[in-house]
């Protein structure tokens, strides 16, 4: 799959905001990943051409940041914050429960490709723990039942 015209236009708009093209690499990766699900070697090559850098320059950036993926993911990313404030309020117990219910461990994807489950470092919701993030949406003040209701609602 290659980058759509929309993504390419979006990247061009982002580039205009920075004094050097490359400033728009993270925004471009966000845009490309939103469309393609992950940054493949082929996507890295296309982006490298757009940015006039090398594919390896793209992939080392991808590898550095948690939110970029170099391989296919489930349709939904579910991240449970397991940092200290959340752990103090049962985040890891919640995580165990979700793992048991989904039948996968953190870091894995359900067999139907619906959910990739992961743990994450502090998400800035410390007072509303435990919590999880589905893509860009926070769900806070959870227990296992509330969490499963949210996960069950994911297509």
């Amino acid at each position: 799959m290659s980058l759509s015209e929309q993504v390419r236009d979006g990247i061009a708009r982002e580039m205009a905001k920075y004094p050097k093209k490359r400033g728009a690499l993270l925004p471009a990766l966000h845009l490309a990943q939103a469309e393609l699900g992950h940054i493949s070697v082929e996507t890295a090559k296309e982006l490298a051409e757009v940015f006039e850098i090398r594919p390896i320059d793209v992939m080392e950036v991808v590898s550095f940041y948690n939110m970029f993926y170099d391989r296919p993911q489930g349709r939904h990313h579910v991240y449970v914050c397991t940092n200290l404030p959340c752990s103090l309020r049962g985040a890891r117990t919640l995580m165990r429960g979700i793992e048991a219910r989904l039948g996968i461990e953190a870091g894995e994807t359900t067999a139907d490709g619906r959910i990739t489950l992961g743990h994450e470092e502090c998400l800035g919701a410390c007072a509303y723990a435990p919590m999880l993030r589905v893509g860009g949406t926070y769900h806070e003040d959870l227990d296992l039942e509330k969490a499963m209701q949210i996960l069950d609602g994911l297509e």
Partner: protein
Amino acid sequence: MLTVPYVTSYLSEHFGDDAFRTLEGYRARGGYQAAKKALTEMSPEDVVELVKTAGLQGRGGAGFSTGLKWSFMPKETDKPKYLACNADESEPGSFKDRILLERGPHQMLEGILIAAWATGAEKTFVYVRGEYAYPARCLQQAIDEAEAAGILGANVMGTGFRHDVVLMRGAGAYICGEETGLLESLEGKKGQPRKKPPFPAQYGAFGMPTTVNNVETFCHVPHILTRGADWFRGFGTEKSPGTTIFGVSGHVVRPGLYELPLGTRLDEIVFEHAGGVPDGRKVKGVIPGGMSMPVLPASMLDVPMANESLRERKTMLGTGGIMVMDETTCMVRAACVITYFFRDESCGQCTQCREGTGWMNRIVERIERGAGTHEDLEVLLDVCGKMEGQTICAFADAAAWPVQGLLRHFREDFEEHVRRQKCPFPDSFEL
């Protein structure tokens, strides 16, 4: 869900009011008057002087004088100058910048405008952590509104001053909250902090002179402009004036945000404001300023929350993220979580940090599993010593301090694990 602070002051006064998030609502409450005043009545030097006199300290963790930082920007230069707003809030226990972005984005933009005038910056890059999708949307909305109204752009409020604000989203790396890590990330690279010299004021974003300030720091600025340095100094302590928004989390009745003057006592925040520990349990320890800061035991909570007093207890204000741990808490488990975090987030450049964070994590996890030795405790402290003050940025210090703090005040927890070769805290939070 994110709620407005339980205790409010000037920063969060209007956070309960949805209209405050809009340009119209912000203006109706006096918004952008301070920026107008700065741009039309004051010289950049006047503004820097005023912020210095007010004694505003950066609220991102280091507590450096904001006015002084601004004054480092070169005056005579042909290069474009930039500001960067650090909205990469990732310090565990901290969630104040999130509400400042969600509930008062124009307040921050006004602070940015004033800082831009003071430093001669033509552009501000706001670096919002990637996970903050909603706060980023709130801010982008405010930027769009301000641009449309001529508050940002080629002719700020008709003054002829140019200033643009660009919002960039990070992608999940704690180290991008370090100011030069942020600059690298802004340039589309891995967020690995830069060696200094050169310093950002000489060679910052894209090689141009740059000043980096935290979200909250900018938010204080319009209030100082409007009401003056004396008024600002009416809050807080002599050395640490103003309020800050404390985030309280962990084992308390009312976890949440509290805007209080710096110097408010920690026990007052934990017990009076946040309602103490639920179910009549006792406090065991409190991390006062985000996870990088050393823990305090229950006996030391009578401390004013300001750097000068916290330093006497070998800890610091940091980002004001207060984490309360009750008597059931196993401090070795806490150490496991803390060291895992730093291991996970180390950028990996400097030897001591890359290898030290992992080594500490492996040792504390082994102790928790019941396979620790007494020598391990000495090795842990020794590794901390080898990391502290030795690396490009302060991350390694931030990784060492909490371990030192736990061993300083809760060594008995570690020794008990070693003696019994298992975790002696069955009721502690699960790992």
